[in-house]
């Protein structure tokens, strides 16, 4: 557990970057610091590993005051990941990853073997291990940065906008992998970003900072969306807060409708007969997984993949109410496709029913 108590940083030129920040980052959880540029996120993060010394307040890690610890030893016990990965250009990927273990006295051959495993864990091919960082793509470099920070298996990870220098598609991948990794590792993570969507996606708790380095609000993403304390936080969260908030509400038992379906490859006649006058009918594969909606009237001969409407999203019974609502809204038949955890079709739901479920969930909370 990392505890910041009334932490302050005034730089020699008089800039107050952090003006009394109190915050607790619980064990095994991701705490996200988010806020506009210059609000003191990086400064706050760097005070935790003493790359910047606070001018007031105290920081403890598992009850130990960091000010009393040797800075280098403190840092070796904390992984740190930054925007451009900060890889050592003159060391191969594998030696980059092995840096801290070697520093801590692990034999080089052992450290390298562990590094190989880590590279695999963060989704990098073993073939990349011998390359130098400038021979990697930005996304790959960032993965190496994460692997390097994890190498000594530190209980604490500090991450400063680690995914912001890559394009949106790669960023999304990295975020998903990061969440998967965290679900296995359960590190205590302080994660800095200026991207509120990233904060909400990754954070177990999100701390919104104002310029001047003070805490505006700290809460779970769902609570933050549901109940911002003031206009600043509300503005910062952006629009569609109600809709985005549904993303954190588990889908309750929905009144699923039976749906007539047609196996892929059926003839036009079969499809017409099954549809029995309905305009849209859902095509399934042989595992009963939904493939898409089809209009039997418009078929030429068979139900083939090219004739399927691809616009509809699919929601899982394990997913959020947001997924369920979106499935209904995006479906050409207005009936949202719901699947079970294994991806098999279980029924459909219309928007009005999802909204009633939202109301019920509201009333219960």
């Amino acid at each position, binding site marked *: 557990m990392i505890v910041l108590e009334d932490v302050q940083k005034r730089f020699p030129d008089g800039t107050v970057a952090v003006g009394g920040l109190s915050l607790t980052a619980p064990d095994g959880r991701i705490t996200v610091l988010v806020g506009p540029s210059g609000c003191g996120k990086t400064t706050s993060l760097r005070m935790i*590993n003493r790359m910047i010394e606070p001018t007031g307040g105290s920081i403890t890690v598992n009850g130990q005051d960091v000010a009393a610890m040797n800075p*280098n030893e403190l840092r070796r016990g904390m992984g740190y990941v930054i925007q451009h990965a900060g890889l*050592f*250009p003159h060391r191969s990927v594998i030696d980059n990853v092995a840096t801290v273990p070697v520093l801590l006295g692990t034999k080089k051959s052992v450290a390298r073997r562990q590094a190989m495993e880590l590279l695999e864990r963060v989704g990098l091919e073993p073939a990349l291990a011998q390359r130098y960082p400038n021979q990697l793509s930005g996304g790959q470099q960032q993965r190496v940065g994460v692997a390097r920070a994890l190498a000594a298996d530190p209980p604490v990870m500090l991450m400063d906008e680690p995914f912001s220098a890559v394009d949106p598609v790669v960023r999304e991948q990295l975020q998903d992998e990061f969440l998967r990794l965290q679900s296995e590792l359960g590190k205590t993570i302080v994660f800095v970003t200026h991207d509120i969507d990233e904060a909400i996606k990754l954070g177990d708790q999100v701390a919104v900072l104002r310029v001047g380095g003070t805490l505006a609000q700290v809460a779970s993403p769902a609570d933050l969306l549901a109940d911002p304390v003031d206009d600043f936080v509300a503005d910062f969260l952006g629009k569609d807060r109600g809709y985005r908030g549904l993303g954190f509400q588990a889908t309750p038992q929905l009144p699923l409708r039976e749906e007539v379906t047609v196996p892929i490859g059926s003839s036009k006649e079969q499809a017409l007969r099954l549809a029995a006058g309905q305009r849209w009918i859902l095509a399934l594969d042989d595992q009963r997984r939904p493939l898409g909606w089809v209009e039997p009237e418009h078929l030429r001969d068979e139900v083939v993949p090219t004739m399927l409407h691809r616009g509809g999203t699919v929601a899982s019974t394990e997913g959020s109410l947001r997924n369920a609502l979106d499935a209904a809204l995006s479906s050409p038949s207005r009936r949202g496709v719901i699947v079970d955890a294994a991806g098999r079709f279980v029924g459909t739901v219309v928007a009005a029913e999802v909204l009633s479920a939202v109301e019920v969930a509201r009333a219960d909370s």
Partner: protein
Amino acid sequence: MTWFTGHVDEVFGLARTHLVLSMVPLLFGLLIALPLGWMARRVPRLYGPLIAGSGLLYTIPSLALFILMPLVLGTQILDPINVIVAMTIYTIALMVRTVADGLAAVPDHVTQAATSMGIGRWRRFFTVELPLAVPVIAAGLRVAAVSNVSIVSVAAIIGVAQLGSLFTDGFNRAFVDPIVVGVIACLVLAVAVDAAILLVVRLLTPWQRGGAAA
């Protein structure tokens, strides 16, 4: 060129001395310039004075420096130490700025990453900053090496024998052969030294080879 064939041993002997008198100071100069350049980087207030001061050393005429050395050092006028020290001063003059520039070229995020991993200041200097500054430092070192090979020949005038002696000898006897041989030998030496430095740099910077990824 019958003169050369008759004096091969002598020319090689002079070349060896020439090499020692220009390269030993190159090494000493580099070793002294490293901490000075590092300090210029680390203490912003010292940057100006250190760079300007060391640069100024290069403007001292070499002959004057060679003649002054015995007075400053209290050595014999013919002592090669005089030349070694003078050439070291020239090397420092060229290398302090290069070292400072080379260290400045190390990306900030890389040094910060090193710090964040608990790599202490000294270890960071030797294992991260210095290796990454090698390409820039080496570029300066090549200039200094060639400059040393050229300047050291002036020492012939104060009687320290090396390839420069061939110039004074030829001049005194109004005999052109030794002069031509001396010039060619100096050129060959400079090119060889340059190639040697290039080779060492290539060995030290394997990460600079192989194209960057798309």
